[in-house]
Every structure is written in C-alpha cells, then in structure tokens.
C-alpha cells in the first residue's frame, strides 16, 4: 500500500490517536519522534500552516491534523472500519468528534489555572463530561457501540492523559461515583491491547505535564 511514516511526539494524545488507528488497521509505518523545541525541516515542510505534529506521510504526501489523518486512514485502509456505515450514524460520530474538539480549550483552561478560576472551569468541565457520558456514550461499551471507533480514539485523551493531568492539577472530575459509565469506558479503553501497548509511560508523562503546568502558571 506504499510507505507510511508518522511524525509524532511521545507525550501527545493527538499523535497517539494516529498510532492507535494505524495499529488497529494493521498498517505498517515508520515512526519519527519530533523534538518540539527543535522541529525537523521535514515537519516544517510537511505542515507549513501549523508546524505541528502529528503528520502522516503516505507515498510522500503529507496529511496533517490528527482528526483529518484518522478520516484518511479510514478511507485508505477500509478493513476493520472505525466509522459506522450508515450516513446518519457517521454524522452522529462526526458530531461527537467535533464536540470534543470544541471543548478542548476548556480542559486546557483547567490545566493552566488554580484556585477560584480553576474551580469555576471545573464546573464547566464536569458538565461537559456529564454530556459525554449521557448523550454520547449512553449505555454502550464504546462510543462506537460494541467495538472501538474513531469517536473513542478522538476521546482517547480522557483515559490516561486526563487522569494523569488530574493528579498534576489537583482535580478529581473523572470520578467513578459521579461518572460511572464514562469512568468504566476509560478503564475498558485502556485495556484494549492496541491501546494498552501504546500509551506513554505515566511517570514520564506526569513529570512532563508538571513541567508544562509550572511554565504556564509562571506566565
């Protein structure tokens, strides 16, 4: 199917979305770790608009933006489909992926604030998580139904990353008592072999996020 390369960053959940999709589809690829403080010429050439990872390069053509890459992977390697076949169900899946994207900045706000400001944002985050649990997940095992789909991958930062971030930022929002189904989904997600075997080391991630948060709070 042609050579596949992925430019990524070990701590990035966006990078991991792509790794998971490639592995779920059994696509062989070469991984290039980028130093975000010293981005490679190739990366700048492949993504001149944003200069960000991840970038997937297939047959020498670059695709940037993790969610765009996921759709590309789904269309190029249709085996083990990660989106529903029905057009309406696909629209629903894309709606929730879009929802996650729109709400990202609120979670980031939680990360870069303290005290009252963080508490206020925490209330907003709690509402968002409740909406995801009640309206997006419902009684399903996964957002995709019985198996993983693109919506699960797009929310893949909630398990592991958000859990580690909560320890760093001193919050306890993804809680089994207040969000039993979402919490259960997070644990199930991390048990899926492709996910379980492709997660950044939690200690290394924690140290990295502590450093990041420290810098953000200073400025």
């Amino acid at each position: 199917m042609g050579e596949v390369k992925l430019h990524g960053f070990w701590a990035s959940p966006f990078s991991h979305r792509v790794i998971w999709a490639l592995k779920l589809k059994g696509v062989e690829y070469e991984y290039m770790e980028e130093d975000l403080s010293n981005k490679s010429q190739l990366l700048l050439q492949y993504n001149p608009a944003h200069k960000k990872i991840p970038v997937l390069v297939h047959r020498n053509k670059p695709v940037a933006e993790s969610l765009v890459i996921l759709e590309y992977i789904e269309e190029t390697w249709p085996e083990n489909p990660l989106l529903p076949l029905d057009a309406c169900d696909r629209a629903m899946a894309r709606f929730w992926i879009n929802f996650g994207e729109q709400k990202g900045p609120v979670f980031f706000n939680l990360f870069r604030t303290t005290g009252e400001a963080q508490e206020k944002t925490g209330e907003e985050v709690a509402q968002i998580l409740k909406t995801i649990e009640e309206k997006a997940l419902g009684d399903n095992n996964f957002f995709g139904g019985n198996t993983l789909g693109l919506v699960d991958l797009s929310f893949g930062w909630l398990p592991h990353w958000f859990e580690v971030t909560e320890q760093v930022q001193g919050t306890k929002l993804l809680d089994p008592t207040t969000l039993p189904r979402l919490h259960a989904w997070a644990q199930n997600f991390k048990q899926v072999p492709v996910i379980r075997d492709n997660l950044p080391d939690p200690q290394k991630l924690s140290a990295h996020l502590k450093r990041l948060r420290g810098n953000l709070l200073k400025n």
Partner: protein
Amino acid sequence: MEEVKLLGTWSSPFSYRVLWALELKGIPYQYTEEDLYNKSPFLVKCNPVHKKIPVLVHGGKPICESMVILEYLDGPWPHNPLLPSDPYERAVARFWAKFADDKGTVIWTMFRSTGEEQKEAVKGSLEMLRTIEDLALGDKKFFGGERIGMVDLAFGALAHWLGVFEEIVGIRLLEPESFPRLHKWTKNFKEEPAIKENLPDKDKMLSNFRCLREKLLASP
C-alpha cells in the same frame, strides 16, 4: 426522497454554508428561520447539546454542526460532490475546512473587541489570510478546483461577512494588493448563481451587526 428541512438564521454564515450546499446540489428543502433569542422547541429537540443552528433534518433525523452536515450531504446526494473522490485530496480539503473553523474565530474577535484585544485579532486575521492566500488557494479558481467545494463553503464568510465587519470596525484586511488570489476568489465565489442568489442583504447585515457590536461592547 425523504423530506429535507433546514433550521437557520438569515445572518449566519454557518447557516449559509448548508443553504449553499443544498442549492448547489439542487436538493429541495424547507427553510425555517429561527429566532435565536426565542429558540423553537423543535430546534432544542433537534440539537439538545448545543441548541444552535444550522440543523439539517433529513427524513425526520437531525444532523447538527455545519461541517458535519456538509460531510453528510454527499452520501444521499452524490451529484455535484462537495468533496473530491481521491482520499488524499479529501484529506487536503478536510484540513482547510478545519483551518477555516479553527482560525476563523479570530475575525469575530476583531469584530467584537477594541484596543489591544482588537489589535491582536487584526494581526491574527492577517496571518490567517496570508496562510490561505499562500498555501490553500494556489492558482485555482476555487479551493475545490474548477467547481465550488466544501472548502469554498467553509471559507464563505470571507466573501461576504468579512466586508461587512471591515466596514463596521473601519479596518480593511482583505486588500486586493496584499491578497490578490483571495480577493479574486471572493469575486468568483459570489458570481456563482447558487451563491449570488443566496446572500443576505448587505444593508440589513450592516445594520444588524452594527447593533450587535454595540451590544457586545456594552456588556461585561
């Protein structure tokens, strides 16, 4: 074919993205104008999560978020496709459609602010236009190539709404000398019959958005 309804508002570029798509594909639809200060129970039922327009209702099933709706339309109505057929070209189109959504808000920030915040937003807006001019459009007539596609619709606000905002705040961003390709694109885009015949009245927009800006600046 099952019934198609569109819930929208006359002044929203997001609403128009969908309207233009329906017109370009020749899909018959019933349009309902929503009052955003007094949302209909039907809108709230169709979009309980955001309670926003546009909403497309196809055969009784609601689809929300303008770009999700555009992605949906090629399925049941494949003629005059909004996206190319090649997966790589589709990825490029989706990249720029996402860019339009992610970066487009800086123009709204320019419109609703003053002072330092507005200065920063102007800077951001010019950077965004530079990126589109240099990297997205190239020498094509439309972002979609010879025909209007999803990316053109995603950038539609630049062709009509930006001019209105520029006039109200008194700042010119899309100068033809600085952005010749993009400027030409706005002309080509608005000349397409499906677009030309479906644009909100400019004077009505000026009056409406002027009022809105005053309200936004007055509130904390």
